[in-house]
């Protein structure tokens, strides 16, 4: 086998498909290799799609992409063991086309996205795992796969192989990812008839709701929970830092089970049939954890490069954007007749810096650290908040002023005045 391509893209997730599509459109001869049975088969669950990133790649995606519901309501809940306090924001503005956010089922979306890449001229092979990069000195010249006759050559390789990318580590391009930089998320998809979902969330046929959850749902670990409405199913899950799971000896599944039986959540999924359970890592290290993402004949895009905004739960849009930028870099160099040397590929880094990707990640760069060091955000506060709400709402003859005072006292007692100010300051610094 002496096949040679301009570019090999490893992975057919969001980043890989964006890259393969852009490369093929740019006239490059591209091979995409995916280890799953089909593109997206390893990404079976529901997720949120942010329109802007895909729009830049496929402007009329709305006409044909498999989308579940567009989101018209965002709920943020802080939970303790038996209650939640939170905000619900619903706006008719979200019901104006073009919509901005959608729920999707990754298995469907990824297959569609990959089909677009193939139609553009990319060649995709599935059920094939890239086992290592072929090197000539420090230059990447191709990949080795687990199939018979498995060496394939290319002028450049884009690593879009997702969060636990082993390839770059194996090639010595960067160090192992640290447990404190990744979250472990577990997700389930629960099937319910469409009308039941619409009745329970008070939404119309194509409308959807997201609930973001924080608080005791993560058992004191750094993490959050979420719930999305799909057409005929509900995706829900919880994610916590891998390092915390290790320390606290809680199994992710037990955590998810607890979440499902929470009195505020159980009724939303009552009577449903659980279909899929999946665990997946999310890079949460943020800006400071991003490794070197380019070199001689190679580029890294998507989760593999730790491009995830943990605070805003954005990942796939960063993956698509970085995949697109990596591909554009190669297309431009090729058109200019320049080789894919490390020096030339540094252009990718400049593109990243100019995009929202790096700007956002930089803005939140202190966030992960703050949450790591200040567990009270996940333990003490939710309970205090909930108690405060109860105290205020319960009508029991106590005057409001006294109530407010007791609430204030409870916060101070739990965290000390200085602690509270410190927390606020840290939080402000992190997002400022």
């Amino acid at each position, binding site marked *: 086998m002496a096949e040679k391509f301009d570019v090999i893209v490893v992975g057919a997730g969001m980043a890989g498909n964006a890259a393969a599509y852009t490369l093929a459109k740019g006239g490059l001869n591209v091979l995409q290799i995916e280890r799953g049975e089909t593109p997206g088969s390893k990404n079976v669950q529901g997720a949120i799609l942010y329109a802007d990133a895909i729009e830049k790649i496929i402007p009329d995606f709305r006409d044909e992409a498999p989308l579940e519901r567009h989101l018209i309501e965002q709920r943020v809940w802080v939970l303790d063991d038996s209650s939640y306090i939170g905000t619900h924001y619903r706006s008719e503005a979200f019901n104006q086309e073009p919509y901005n956010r959608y729920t999707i089922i990754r298995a469907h979306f990824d297959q569609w996205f990959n089909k677009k890449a193939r139609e553009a001229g990319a060649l995709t092979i599935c059920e094939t795992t890239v086992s290592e990069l072929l090197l000539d000195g420090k230059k990447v010249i191709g990949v080795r796969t687990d199939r018979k006759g*498995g060496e394939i050559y290319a002028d450049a390789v884009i690593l879009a192989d997702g969060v636990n990318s082993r390839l770059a580590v194996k090639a010595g391009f960067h160090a192992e990812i640290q447990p404190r930089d990744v979250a472990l998320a577990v997700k389930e998809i629960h099937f319910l*008839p469409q009308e039941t979902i619409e009745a329970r969330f008070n939404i119309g046929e194509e409308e959807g709701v997201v609930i973001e959850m924080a608080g005791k749902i993560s058992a004191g670990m750094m993490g959050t929970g979420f719930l999305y409405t799909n057409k005929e199913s509900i995706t829900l899950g919880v994610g916590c830092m891998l390092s915390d799971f290790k320390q606290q000896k809680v199994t992710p599944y037990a955590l998810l089970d607890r979440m499902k039986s929470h009195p505020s959540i159980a009724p939303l999924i009552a009577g449903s049939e659980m279909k899929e359970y999946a665990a997946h890592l999310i890079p949460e290290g943020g800006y400071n954890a991003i490794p070197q993402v380019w070199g001689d004949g190679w580029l890294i895009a998507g989760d593999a490069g730790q491009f995830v905004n943990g605070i805003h739960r954005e990942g796939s849009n960063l993956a698509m954007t970085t995949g697109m930028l990596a591909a554009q870099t190669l297309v431009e160099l090729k058109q200019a007749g320049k080789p894919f040397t490390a020096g030339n590929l540094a252009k990718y880094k400049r593109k990243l810096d100019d995009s929202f990707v790096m700007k956002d990640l930089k803005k939140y760069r202190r966030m992960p650290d703050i949450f790591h060091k200040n567990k009270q955000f996940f333990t003490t506060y939710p309970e205090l908040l909930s108690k405060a709400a109860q105290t205020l709402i319960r009508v029991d003859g106590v005057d409001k002023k006294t109530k407010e005072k007791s609430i204030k006292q409870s916060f101070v007692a739990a965290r000390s005045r200085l602690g509270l100010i410190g927390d606020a300051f840290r939080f402000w610094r992190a997002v400022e």
Partner: protein
Amino acid sequence: MHSVVCIKQVPDSAQIRVHPVTNTIMRQGVPAIINPYDLFALEEALRLKDRFGGTVTVVTMGPPMAEAALRKCLSYGADDAILVSDRSFAGSDTLVTSYALTATLRKIMESMPVDLIFTGKQTIDGDTAQVGPGIAKRLDYQLLTYVSKIVDVDLEHREIRVERRAEGGVQLLKTTLPCLITMLEGTNEMRFGDLDDLFRAARYELKVWDRTVIGIEDPETVGVKGSPTVVSKVFAPRPRSQRAEIIDLQDDSPKNLASTLLARMFTQHPKLEREIAKRAR
């Protein structure tokens, strides 16, 4: 040696759910797979190709999305793939399916004679095991169902010997080529194709044949119209009116649970008690 393997793309029935109110199939998120029984047929055909050389053609009748199933077969090592697809085929029962597949096979034979036709034992959606026999009868081929082993093939004398799973035993059969074999499950294991196969599968220009290509002029002879069987009603299995009587004495020992169960069961089902008592003698 030219083998044709008939495969079908089916919804993974392990993941099918039924809408509790409307009783319709909820297909969302249910992946389409190659009927698992057909993979045994394909692998057997590939093994014959390994031994005798020749060609393996896969055929499916189905909607355009069945292309994925055919490509997968190519990636395992099949040489050619034909998708027979036409709107008028919708709702075909097994008699009509075997009619359309037979027409397809005749068309294939115009360009290359066929030595063996393979089908799976049955599908997991229709579950009828009727299409294979149907094709054999229409082509007037010898039919060998539930074949567990191809013992040998004598291409020169056009003879084949197989072991066939019969009720209560195994038949060793000898017949002549061409013939149709429905392959029993568990008889082999699907191979892992090499890179060349994958590239070929990805680049292969699929042949898509519609009704007229296979020479079926009259649309009334296929689909719902041409099918003798008509589905008059679809419904969910009736749940038993009562849930199980739960023997659940909180914190009770397994021993007490067991004796409570026996006591209740034998009071309500005295015949069962006699049946079990009989065993004591």
